[in-house]
């Protein structure tokens, strides 16, 4: 499957990678040349997470914004929090943030206190 066939954003039924991702049939990292990372994102708004495909060179803020829109957010400064409770810097790429295939991330807001 060429990268051109894959789109950025939520992975839903019918997506070329849907069965692989949801069934976890692959069980291993994609090849090093793979430009994408697939992550499961949770939001405090709904019980179930959603799978997303992002480009590794996409910024955390851009990817989190895309996920936030999918969960119905408007505005704010969305970013991701890892299961280790690390809030990711919105300005760096997913690759630089160490985001891996199949990683579970949580949407959080990076706005400041006042």
């Amino acid at each position, binding site marked *: 499957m060429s990268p051109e066939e894959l789109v950025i954003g939520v992975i839903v039924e019918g997506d070329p990678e849907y069965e692989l991702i949801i069934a976890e049939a692959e069980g291993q990292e994609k090849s090093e040349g793979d430009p994408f990372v697939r992550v499961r994102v949770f939001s*405090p*708004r709904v*019980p179930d997470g959603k799978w997303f495909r992002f480009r590794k060179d996409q910024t955390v803020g851009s990817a989190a914004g895309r996920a936030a829109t999918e969960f119905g957010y408007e505005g704010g*400064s969305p970013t991701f929090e890892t299961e280790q409770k690390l809030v990711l810097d919105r300005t760096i790429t997913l690759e630089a943030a160490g985001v891996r295939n199949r990683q579970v991330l949580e949407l959080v*807001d990076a*706005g400041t*206190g*006042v």
Partner: protein
Amino acid sequence: MTALPVSAVRAIVQGEWPGALSWAGRHGWIVELQVDELRLRASTDHPAAHRPVEFLAHLDSYRALPPAWHVVAPGTDRDAGPEDFPKAGPGNSIFHGNLVLCAPWNRLAYKSVNPKGPHEDWGGPESWLSVSTIHTTAHTLGDMLAAIDVFLRVSPGMMG
């Protein structure tokens, strides 16, 4: 000040509750929705102080107005003193020296509602959904719990 019928508030809160409850399960919080009283109680352990920290939100007129979030002495309805109120972490925190959660999504942050509220510059609590997004933004109860958790995680201890 805008008021919403209790039935409308209950419907809104119950619609948001499954997401908030799931969030709490993923993050080790205990949350309880007291539907009749329109209150939400939420507690966790302070990560640095290793002591319980507890929050009580009054939800009347939510979402015409933001909830009134109190930090309370654990197991009580009493507003927390410094010994039970988290200390601000690095940068700008929601844990304010006035012992108020200082965020647009807290009704008690508005001076027009609460004399200890630090803010007169946000257009009043009716405008809480449109305050600048530079500040912490949380438009549902689950979002608010997640925001509290983020700031609590970098709090170095209790104020007192």
